[in-house]
């Protein structure tokens, strides 16, 4: 059975490390220690390693967590994983989808397509059990000698200094210490490092409880996200159905606030609910979990030399796929900055932009997911009345359909950041500074089609100038990659999509950051303006 194969691959052994024989003045020193080998910690470690950094990655367990947990991975996350060399495996195993349908009672209210246009390498979303994603990331880690992954290594104490951190780590053979210039805490919503630095985790807990069940069955439902308000099989509440690989289906059912969590989780109590939903009993349970939504974040993501990323820094309710995806965006945002600081190319203050950009993104994710949760579980009678009005207006008006909130799915944030240079020219479209680069197909001189996201990887995932040819190529500073579309020797915009998506004219140029975000753009890129934008984006001015 496929699920068993997946489980078997997820057990890892503890191995003694020579660091454990060192103590006192002789404890080992490392540039970066990442704590937590979940999707965020693993991806961050790989990105840092690919940039040439040595990384120690600690995890307190010796296996990948059970249950599918996060299942929706966004286009943006897949583009990040492409850079890490694992995108193809994720997409091959995952279930590709872009269409969502919203039902009210027994009838469909409307449907939406999250990626209604062609010409992108990656789909809007794939669904993939988190344990597969983690297993593929671990496989990639094992190809990278720069990463030292230590299972059953649990951080039990942390001592901060101005120039680093001393960690005390418990293992099956006793505790040892290491020093690190930087520690990145990717140790999840119940982060013990967050407690060790004494930081709070403030926010809102929602009263309604949700039941998550992963069931195995063969079904003919299409590969779409189906969301019900007040379905016939679960009167008065909401429900979600989503497909995963291996004939596994994710079902979310909203329960009453006063439902007994222990009783509700018993398979014999869950089974009749699912039978009513599916209309048959030909399914088996893979995983059942019950939870309340929480929307919380740390006030600051950086505490001295300890940096928080993913669920340890922010937690959102799950309708919107904003948990794991925002954690992965944290990782890609942090890795290039940390790499530059460790190399002495940028001052440590560059890291502050990680806090600015990603805490604003966390606020946005919390705002969006709170609105979805409030819509699904109205608090007051009048709130319920307004929701009911929206649902009934949605039956015959377009504005009503668009107001129905069954989850707004994760898209990359646009950063309002000191690293961006403001537009000085006129633009009618295209990604503005602080926005993520857009994909488009272009044709190589040999005639093959290649996507811009892949050309960016070929250029080394570093500061890169994307220019639309206008005679001679722009003279770029050392260390900056170039992608040239049009002009002599450049890529050909055969379908015109690159030019359209970037609002390009001959001479248009976009300066991309190493995480693929736009730092600046020019109608005519002159060298002094480019140098200034580059310095600003690298935090060296």
């Amino acid at each position, binding site marked *: 059975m496929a699920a068993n194969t997946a489980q078997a691959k997820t057990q890892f052994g503890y191995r003694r490390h020579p660091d454990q024989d060192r103590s006192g003045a002789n404890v080992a020193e490392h540039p970066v220690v990442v704590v937590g080998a979940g999707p965020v910690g693993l991806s961050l470690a790989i990105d840092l390693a690919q940039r040439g950094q040595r990384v120690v990655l600690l995890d307190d367990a010796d296996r990948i967590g059970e249950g599918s947990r996060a299942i929706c991975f966004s286009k943006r996350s897949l583009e990040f994983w492409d850079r890490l060399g694992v995108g193809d495996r994720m997409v091959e195993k995952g279930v590709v989808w872009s269409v969502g349908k919203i039902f009210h009672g027994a009838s469909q209210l409307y449907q939406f397509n999250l990626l209604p246009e062609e010409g992108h390498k990656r789909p809007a979303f794939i669904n993939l059990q988190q344990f597969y994603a983690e297993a593929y990331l671990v496989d990639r880690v094992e190809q990278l000698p720069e990463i030292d992954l230590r299972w059953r290594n649990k951080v039990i104490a942390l001592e901060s200094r101005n120039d680093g951190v001393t960690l005390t780590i418990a293992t099956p053979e006793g505790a040892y210490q290491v020093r690190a210039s930087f520690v990145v805490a990717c140790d999840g919503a119940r982060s013990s490092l967050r407690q060790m630095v004494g930081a709070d985790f403030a926010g809102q807990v929602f009263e309604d409880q949700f039941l998550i069940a992963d069931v195995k069955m063969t079904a003919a439902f299409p590969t779409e996200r189906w969301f019900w308000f007040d379905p016939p099989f679960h009167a008065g509440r909401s429900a979600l159905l989503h497909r995963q690989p291996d004939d596994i289906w994710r079902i979310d059912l909203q329960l009453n606030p006063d439902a007994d969590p222990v009783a509700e989780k018993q398979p014999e109590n869950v089974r009749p609910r699912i039978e009513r939903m599916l209309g048959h009993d030909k399914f088996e349970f893979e995983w059942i979990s019950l939870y309340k939504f929480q929307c919380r974040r740390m006030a600051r993501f950086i505490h001295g030399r300890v940096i928080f990323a993913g669920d340890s820094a922010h937690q959102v309710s799950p309708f919107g796929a904003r948990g794991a995806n925002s954690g992965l965006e944290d990782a890609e945002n942090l890795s290039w900055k940390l790499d530059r600081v460790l190399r002495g190319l940028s001052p440590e203050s560059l890291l502050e932009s990680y806090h600015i950009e990603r805490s604003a993104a966390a606020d946005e994710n919390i705002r969006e997911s709170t609105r979805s949760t409030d819509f699904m579980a109205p608090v007051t009678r*009048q709130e319920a009345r*307004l929701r009911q*009005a*929206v649902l009934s207006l949605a039956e015959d008006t377009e504005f009503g359909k668009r107001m129905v909130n069954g989850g707004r799915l994760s898209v990359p944030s646009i950063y309002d950041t000191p690293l961006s240079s403001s537009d000085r020219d006129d633009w009618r479209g295209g990604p503005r500074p602080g926005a993520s680069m857009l994909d488009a197909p272009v044709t190589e001189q040999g005639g093959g089609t290649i996507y811009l996201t892949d050309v960016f990887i070929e250029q080394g995932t570093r500061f890169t100038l994307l220019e639309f040819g206008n005679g001679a190529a722009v003279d770029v500073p050392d260390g900056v990659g170039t992608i040239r579309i049009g002009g002599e020797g450049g890529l050909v915009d055969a379908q015109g999509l690159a030019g359209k998506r970037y609002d390009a004219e001959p001479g248009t140029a976009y300066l991309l950051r190493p995480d693929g975000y736009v730092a600046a753009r020019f109608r005519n890129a002159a060298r002094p303006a480019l140098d200034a934008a580059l310095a600003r984006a690298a935090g060296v001015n």
Partner: protein
Amino acid sequence: MALSTSSNFAKPDDAFRAIVEAHRGLTEAQSADLDAALVLVLANHIGDLDVLREAIALAKRRMLDASQQQQQQQQ
């Protein structure tokens, strides 16, 4: 665009009457349902978040003034 509080209907009594009549014969709960739908329909027609916020602020201020007056009368 700012919220318009000048009189926009040629026959304001007709407009008021239309709303009142829509509520005739309804229970309080049904009236509240009707108002909820009506507010959403009209808000979308206006289609301007700033104007909507101004309208909400004006409506809330009237409510606040009314409750203060009530308190003063009771004292």
